[in-house]
C-alpha cells in the first residue's frame, strides 16, 4: 500500500516547490494542498504542526516541517 502523503504549501515558496519535486522524483503520489487558496487548510496545517511555516508534509500521520530530506526519506521508508 502506498503511503498517504499530504503537502501543505503555497505556490510561491521555493522549499515547497523543492519538496514536491523531490516526491515526484521518487514516484510518491501526494495531495497538494494550497493553503493560500483554502483558509481552513491553513488552520489544519497550523494545528497539525504547531507552527505557521510552509511546507508541511503529513506522511501518514508523521508531520515534517520544511523541506527536510532526511526526515521525509525516513517517514516514507525510502
Amino acid at each position, binding site marked *: 500500500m502506498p503511503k498517504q502523503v499530504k503537502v501543505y504549501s503555497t505556490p510561491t*515558496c521555493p522549499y515547497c*516547490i523543492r519538496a514536491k519535486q523531490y516526491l515526484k522524483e521518487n514516484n510518491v503520489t501526494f495531495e497538494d494542498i494550497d493553503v493560500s487558496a483554502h483558509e481552513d487548510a491553513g488552520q489544519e496545517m497550523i494545528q497539525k504542526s504547531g507552527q505557521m511555516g510552509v511546507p508541511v508534509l503529513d506522511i501518514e500521520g508523521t508531520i515534517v516541517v520544511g523541506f527536510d530530506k532526511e526526515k521525509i526519506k525516513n517517514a516514507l521508508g525510502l
Partner: protein
Amino acid sequence: MVLIKKRLKTRLVYKMYDLIIIGAGPAGITASVYAARKRMNFLVISRDIGGQTAWSGDIENYTGYQFISGPELAAKFEEHMRQYKIPLKETEEVEDFRRDGDGFIVKTAKGEYRSRTVIVASGKRSKELGVPGEKEFKNRGLTYCATCDGPLFSGKDVAVIGGGNSALDAAIQLMKIARHITIVTSAGSLTGDSVMREQVETSPLVTVMNNARVAAVTGDKFVSGITIVKNGLEEKLQVQGVFVEIGLTPNSYFCTILEKNQIGEIKVTIQNETNVPGVFACGDVTDVPEKQIIIAAGEGAKAALGVFRYLIQNPLHG
C-alpha cells in the same frame, strides 16, 4: 602494517577533491557549470538551490530573459547544473573550513570533506532583529518570507518591520491578505521606491510608525504582539504576524580564516582570490560592488576559471 592500514582507511574516508563549491545560488551554480566543463573533480555543498533568486519576484534584467520570475530562473539554473550530473550535497550547511596540508578540510554537520581549493558562494540571508522572542516565535507568527508565509495571515493584524523596498514589497503583498498592516521603521520615513511608497501610504489598511524600534516579540504559543520603543516610550502593539524585512547579511560566519570588511563581506581581488591562497569567493557574500543575479553569475565563472589556473600552477607533490 597496522599503521599502513589505518592510513589507507583515512584516505578512503577523505577523498581529495580538486574543488568544493559552497553555495548553489547564481554564483555557485555558474562556478559548478564551469568546473564541470573543465572536468574538475569537485563537489557542491549547499543549504538550498537557487539562493535568493528562488525567493525573488519578477526579474527583468537578466540578459536573454525579458521577463522571468525568480523561481523560474532558479529552476533554469538548476536544470543547467543537473545536466552535468554534478555531485551535490543539498540541505547541508558548512560549519567551518581550515587549511590542511596541500588543501582544506570543509566541515558540515554531516561530515568532513577534503579539497585542494574552495569557492565560497554562500550569498546573503535575511538580517535578524536580535530581540527577545524572535527565535522562539520564528514560524509561529514571525517570518522572514512574506511571499512564502503571507497567505497564512489572511484576515489578521500584522506588522512589517523595516522601511526599504523589501518591507514595502511585503506590505503590498499583505494588503491583499491581512486585515491591517503596521509598518515599523527605525528611520524618519519610508525609504523604498516612490511608486511603492505611494501605494502603501495611500492604503487605508496600512499605518506607518516612523522612528520606532522593535524591542521584543511576545505571545504564548503563537505571536500575539510586539513591544515598540518610540521617543523613549514603550508601547504594545497587538499583532498575530510579524514580517521581518530589515535587509540582508552575508553568510560568511563559517569563513573564520578569511578576511572580511566591516559588514562581514569577504574581501576579494578582481580575480576573486581571498587572502588565503586556494580559497576563492564570488557573488553576494563578497565585497563585489553591486549585488545582482547577473553579476553573481559572472563572478562565479571568474572564480571557477581562477581555480582552474590555480590548480595548474600548484600541482600536488608526490
